[in-house]
């Protein structure tokens, strides 16, 4: 279910959607790959082979739903929970794991780790671990799209925590004033590091702030990739038609702690149980099985494929060498 809030009624007009609608089985497989990737990371960390990491377990739907609505020309800026966005964009899980393990074959040669992965070949300009950093740079990427007459739009993923930063206001305000083609995607996962959103915000959500800044917005069930995808396509069509930014708020939930390992002792158990019941992966899988679009054998084949992909990725990352000491001071300056 998608509720649109807009300061500009024209944005509500139906628009041709592009690209094609999301194949739900493909969406399920991509979400399962993202989940398996993050579980692999947690496992590798538990065995002392990778640094601790921030996961987005439970938030796979906005990643798959939004990224699948982008075209090859579009650019992505994201935050410290970026694995889903990268994998949804087609990143090689082996190169991502290599990056997290500090290896030479990682997307950034091992200098990023998990917290700053960018991948120019995929149009991923930035993973910002400074909360709100992606909001600060997104306007510039939108400006370059406009000034250089590039066809792409900018997708900027941030959380409810970043929405409490001043940069959220600054970024949306400037994007609205300068007519920048930016899809702001707030993955409202209810948690801001170790603090629940209800402790830090009087408002019930983020999207309500957009209208005051002259930005159209919508709220979508962030645990349903198909709903997210439809909302993102509609939002992107509005951006292309109006040349104005759009804020899409996906209501979702971070099922694991802030930074692995994390015992989640601070999490309300009833709330966690409630959201586990809305886990986007079993939810979509059950729906597809009910609708007769996925058999148990299909699901087993997908699971096997995902497992094989992660085994190959882990082997690739393991085999990749560490960077040489000479890399310490390369790429500081052009």
């Amino acid at each position, binding site marked *: 279910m998608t509720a649109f809030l807009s300061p500009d009624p024209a944005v509500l007009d139906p628009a041709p959607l592009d690209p094609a609608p999301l194949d739900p089985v493909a969406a399920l497989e991509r979400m399962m790959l993202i989940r398996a990737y993050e579980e692999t990371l947690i496992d590798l960390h538990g065995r002392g082979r990778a640094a601790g990491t921030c996961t987005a377990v439970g938030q796979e739907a906005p990643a798959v739903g939004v990224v699948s609505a982008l075209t090859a020309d579009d650019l992505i800026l994201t935050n410290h929970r970026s694995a889903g966005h990268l994998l949804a964009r087609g990143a090689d899980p082996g190169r991502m794991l290599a990056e997290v393990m500090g290896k030479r074959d990682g997307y950034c040669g091992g200098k990023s780790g998990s917290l700053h992965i960018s991948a120019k070949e995929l149009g991923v300009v*930035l993973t910002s671990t400074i909360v709100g*950093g992606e909001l600060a740079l997104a*306007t*510039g990427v939108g*400006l370059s799209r406009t*000034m250089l007459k590039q066809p792409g739009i900018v997708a900027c993923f941030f959380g409810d925590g970043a929405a409490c930063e001043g940069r959220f206001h600054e970024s949306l305000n400037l994007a609205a004033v300068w007519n920048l083609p930016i899809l702001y995607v707030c993955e409202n996962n209810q948690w801001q590091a170790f603090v629940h959103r209800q402790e830090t915000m009087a408002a019930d959500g983020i999207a309500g702030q957009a209208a005051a800044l002259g930005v159209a917005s919508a709220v979508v069930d962030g645990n349903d990739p198909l709903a997210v995808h439809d909302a993102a396509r509609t939002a992107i069509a509005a951006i292309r038609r109006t040349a104005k930014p759009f804020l899409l708020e996906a209501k979702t939930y971070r099922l694991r702690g802030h930074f692995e390992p994390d015992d989640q002792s601070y999490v309300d158990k009833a709330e966690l149980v409630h959201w586990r019941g809305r886990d986007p992966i079993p939810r979509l899988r059950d729906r597809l099985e009910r609708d007769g679009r996925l058999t148990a054998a299909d699901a087993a084949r997908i699971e096997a494929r995902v497992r094989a992909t992660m085994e190959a990725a882990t082997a690739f990352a393991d085999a990749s060498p560490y960077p040489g000491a000479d890399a310490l001071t390369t790429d500081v300056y*052009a």
Partner: protein
Amino acid sequence: MTTMTVNDAISAALAEEMRRDPTVLIFGEGVATKRRDLLEEFGAARVRNTPLAEGIIAGTAAGAAATGLRPVIDLLFAPFLCYAMDEIVNSAGKLRYLSGGQFQFPMVVLAMTGAGWGVGAQHNHNNESWFVHSPGLKIVMPSTPADFKGLMKTAIRDDNPVLVFADIALGYTPGEVPEDAEAIPLGKAALRREGTDVTLVSYAKTVGTCLQAADALAADGIDAEVIDLRSLKPLDEAAILRSVAKTGRLVVVHEASRLCGVGAEVAALVAEKAFASLRAPVLRLTGPDAPAPASFPLEQAFVPQPDAVVAAVQSLMLDVVAA
């Protein structure tokens, strides 16, 4: 030769580079209001006013730089850079490295600072050394209109983020600028006065202070050499060491406060690499560890003056290290 002020030299450099390269644009607080000539020539898309929000101005520049533009941003006053520290230091300065060289950040940050306008410490804070200490950034702080023009041109062409600090007191100072001024390389100091007895190293408005002191010292028969660093990172180490090897004495003069300032770096450099040349201790004349006051006499007292430089040099001439 044309005579122009520092402010006009900055605009002239911008105009030339914007003509040369269509990806160069400038935005900031009042840019389109104040630089009308640029607005008229290049239009509202390339000369933009912005909200009074330094963080998003700098972030927008970094994002634009990473994806094909060469933005110049005017953040007005150096203390305002505090609102943009994250974007300048954490993003523009670090993301080339963190991306393994995938992205580059060709952008220029303009900011004014220094005594001379009585604006007090939230508009006047010579914080250039903070940025010298931050990896991935280059910093220039010129002293003449010709250098402002030449270094601005180089800064715009450079593929790294470059901060250009403009001394408020120099803004309306006229100077000769060659018609066909070429870009001046970053990291090259200018020898403003040759001398054999003592090296005075400075940058920005205190270069003039050192030149006045050198004239006074000449009347006493002391021959001072004056080096204008112009560029604080990269730092022209060779020019400093070459001069100290000749004179054996060094006084570093700047308006920024002493602790961990550029003078500390210059002194340490000489201690490490030219210790045997020194015939006297290295001295630093700097602003105090205090916010810059608004009151005119206090503001002037904040800045090293020529008589203090003269006195420091005279003390060094007496303080001969035993052979």
